[in-house]
């Protein structure tokens, strides 16, 4: 077959495809199929408990009903949990939007599955539906009104990157990363759809507000996300002139801002202790040439230098992280501000910590957490290879230095800045929207890294940096997609959005 013939066939095939399914529909359908196979057909893929489930579970009226649950920590995914049948005294342990999801899943579980045993796949089904919607909106925001060939390439890329089981395995777990993934995609997609004026503005603002709120309150370390999103929303105030829109936008902005503050303020104490412990032992003390001096500067007994490099999760430790001595003489002497101040005054150490953070910033699937059930007969902690091409490729190929992240930010900013400046000069604020949203994603990712280091040193970095992982992938995906559809640094981006 000659080249022209192949091209003709491809064009006919694409025209046929386009008649029945849009690139966004194609991406959503394919992602649904892959996720369904991974999570809902044997062998079921999920995430093993690393000890964090306890708080979420008990505060939501669930409990570990397997007698050998302890022996499966980190090793095996468990899909069934007991539903407490009596008064639950742990209700106030955990504040998170994740609880809303679990409560919804629990209600559906009681209605359709069992009133005694909770199957985590019920929650997974809800998350899969939300995920499919998010993928649809994201791909739609980039492929709308585009040549089918480019559209389907972008759709395939979206599936390859985001339907990776390193991401979707979180659905079958009680880690809040699942909500983070979906809500970041929804937030970003709604921003891009506002920029392209694809759907009704009010509907998109509603999606933005709800997903932004759920994202901010999904995890304690996401507190800055609310503030970053609120700042980004300032641009949205300018895209329409109606007073009603401005009032709604201002309310959204305020809601996101205060949700960020509230998320920080409502952090349960135990969490603060573990992270505060790591912030010192795996942060300031870790890279310090003179830990005794660093401690004395903060008004802490220099003998605490002996805790340098220690991790709370080690099976045996000198001191209980919640002990009176640490509460009274250690944690009380420093907080977020003091640690930040220390890093500012010790830039060399801060840079080495950032490099350390970058080493884990490109690993989507946290190491040492098994994906299979024990019944499958797989070895302890074995992880799945099913549809994991992107996560494996990323882990193997990404340059793991903070310098690379800086270059990546510089390139992305450089690429989108010209069209942003032009739009601002023309006072065309809608067309100026794309860059603020992309930059807010970058800032959210960076906040993930900074909060991880300041809040908990290098402990659990690959899990703490999940927010960076997602935003890096989203921004990179948008850059590649814009390159494919030739919308990168064109000064005139008006072609992108519908006229007012």
């Amino acid at each position: 077959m000659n080249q022209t013939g192949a091209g003709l066939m491809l064009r006919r095939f694409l025209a046929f495809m386009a008649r029945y399914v849009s690139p966004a529909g194609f991406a959503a359908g394919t992602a649904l199929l892959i996720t369904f196979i991974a999570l809902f057909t044997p062998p079921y893929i999920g995430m093993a408990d690393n000890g964090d489930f306890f708080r979420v579970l008990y505060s939501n009226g669930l409990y570990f009903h397997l007698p050998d649950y302890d022996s499966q920590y980190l090793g095996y995914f468990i899909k069934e949990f007991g539903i407490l049948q009596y008064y639950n005294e742990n209700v106030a342990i955990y504040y998170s939007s994740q609880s809303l999801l679990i409560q919804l899943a629990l209600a559906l579980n009681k209605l359709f599955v069992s009133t005694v045993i909770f199957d985590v796949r019920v929650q997974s089904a809800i998350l899969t539906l939300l995920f499919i919607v998010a993928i649809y909106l994201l791909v739609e925001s980039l492929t709308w009104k585009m040549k089918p060939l480019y559209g389907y390439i972008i759709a395939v890329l979206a599936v390859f990157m985001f339907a990776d089981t390193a991401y979707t395995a979180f659905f079958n777990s009680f880690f809040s990363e699942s909500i983070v993934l979906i809500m970041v995609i929804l937030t970003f997609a709604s921003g891009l759809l506002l920029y392209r004026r694809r759907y009704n503005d009010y509907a998109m603002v509603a999606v933005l507000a709800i997903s932004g709120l759920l994202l901010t309150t999904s995890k304690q370390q996401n507190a800055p996300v609310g503030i970053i999103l609120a700042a980004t929303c300032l641009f949205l105030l300018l895209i329409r002139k109606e007073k009603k829109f401005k009032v709604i936008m201002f309310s959204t902005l305020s809601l996101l801002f205060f949700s960020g503050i509230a998320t920080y303020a409502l952090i349960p104490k135990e969490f603060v202790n573990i992270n505060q412990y790591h912030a010192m032992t795996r942060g300031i003390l870790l890279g310090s040439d003179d830990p005794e001096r660093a401690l004395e500067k903060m008004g802490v007994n220099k003998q605490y230098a002996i805790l340098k490099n220690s991790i709370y999760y080690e099976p045996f430790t000198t001191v209980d992280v919640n002990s009176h001595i640490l509460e009274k003489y250690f944690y009380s002497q420093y907080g977020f501000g003091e640690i930040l101040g220390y890093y500012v005054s010790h830039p060399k150490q801060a840079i080495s910590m950032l490099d350390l953070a970058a080493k884990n910033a490109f690993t989507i699937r946290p190491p040492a957490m098994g994906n299979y059930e024990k019944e499958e007969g797989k070895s302890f902690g074995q992880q799945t290879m099913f549809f994991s091409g992107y996560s494996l490729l990323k882990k193997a190929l990404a340059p793991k230095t903070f310098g690379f992240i800086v270059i990546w930010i510089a390139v992305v900013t450089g690429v989108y800045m010209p069209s942003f400046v032009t739009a601002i000069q023309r006072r065309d604020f809608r067309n100026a929207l794309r860059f603020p949203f992309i930059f807010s994603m970058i800032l959210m990712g960076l906040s993930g890294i900074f909060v991880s280091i300041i809040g908990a040193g290098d402990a659990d970095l690959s899990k703490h940096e999940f927010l960076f992982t997602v935003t890096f992938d989203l921004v990179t995906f948008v850059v590649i997609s814009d390159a494919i559809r030739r919308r990168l640094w064109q000064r005139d981006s008006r072609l992108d959005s519908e006229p007012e």
Partner: protein
Amino acid sequence: MKFKAAAAILLSLLYWLTSSLNLTGVDASNEQLTPQKVLLLYDSMANDTSKAGNVELLQRQLASFGMEVTLLAEDFYSKGLLDQFNWLILIKNSAEIRTINESFERDLAAFEGHLLQIGGVLSPPLKKKLPVDVEFTKSKQNVVIAMSGLQEEVAPVQNAAYIHVNREAGQSVESYGTLSPINSDSKNMPFAVKNNNAAYAPLYEKGNLSELAMLYVLKEWLGTTGDGQLYLLFKEIYPFSDLDLLAKAADELYEAGIPFIASVRPVLDNFDYPAMFRYMEALKHIQSRNGSIVINTPVISSTTRDTTEILGYKLTSFINALGDYGVVPLGMGAELYWSYDKEYVNNGMAFFDSVILFPNQLIMHRSQSNVSQTFASALYSVSPEEWNTFLSQRKVWADIPTDIALTVDFPENEQELEDMVSFINDQWLVFSDYKLARHEVITERFTMVSGNGLMINGKGQILNDTERIVDSDFQYVEEDEVSFSKLFSIQNRIFIFIICLALLLFGILFVLGYRLYKRKYLK
């Protein structure tokens, strides 16, 4: 200075002399016989009642007498198990009278060994052996317990039971202590009774005099001879505690003539840090001030199972670090559940023949067992707050039923220290020196023994109190090994030169280009 040195030598000599005389009554090594096995059966843990915790209490008390305890709920008793035991204790916490396990009832009826029942209606074999009646009251009553010259009024007891000894048949029955309703004219009833190998006590609760009284009953029932010793123990001592205050406490207690035990938290890493040396220096100071060192168990943060042998390795490292520095640990301070866990026993407690068993705070089992590990010495730990009401009644306490460690958290400031020292002085209690008894700690590198002075690998340790000031200078971050540094520095200079040259050339070309441009287009 000369006077100080002479005093130190004199004190060491004096210590060696008193040690060799072996003034203490307890010699742990003498008790290293095959431990007696006791089956401890309970009907209920009685949570949420005043009896809550009495099973655990009894486990610790039995450990202090060197008994190997097999703990079992009556429901799980299987036929024939009793045949393996010569000692049986029944705890009847439940008010209900019911047959829980028929095979147990049958085996019990045929049991001929030593039997102690705590609470409940007399079981059939006891009825045969003890000519007593037990009267149960329906209402709550305040009762007065008295034992060995001590007395305490106990808050309302539900279904209090009183023992009436049958006068005719009860000639051979031995009574221990008294238990009577308050404001009652009736004659004092016994706290417990024993006839040959059968004994019964109706009341046993944590935190009141029945706790101490039971120690006397157990001593008689088990046939243990000799008095126990009383020790003073400090816990919650960390490497980052106020080490100056620790030294001051040691000095003050030394001056007051009070020997003590310090249960110190182990350091599991960073043995070469200055902070570690300061910690060991403080422990050495304690040792020189009549203090004995025992190692507290490390904190267990998680119970995931991929940690086999880490515990042993970490503890050995700490013990060896102490040994290298001349600090001699003599035992381990552990919560009771450690002695019921195979992994902790094998990897954590195996170095020690002496322990101090604290009440359980947070149980974190790895490999739970219902059979306890026995030790040559297992001090029974009590808090002075709990026993304060009756401890203060006696000026001299000679007939201590078992080895007891009066356990207090180490004071946080000078005021607390002063209060604690005066409290101890006010008690009129005589504390024994832990290191005068034989205790042994063995690692691959060290054999540490007390009894005849503190010995490490057979060599006596001089308890020198000359303090060493530990320097803070230490290289915490190892510098990476650098290869070809000279070559790279030359390479750097070459590159800098090339870059500067390129910039210069670029500048010249830029100027030339601009002039050409101006000449061509701007005329």
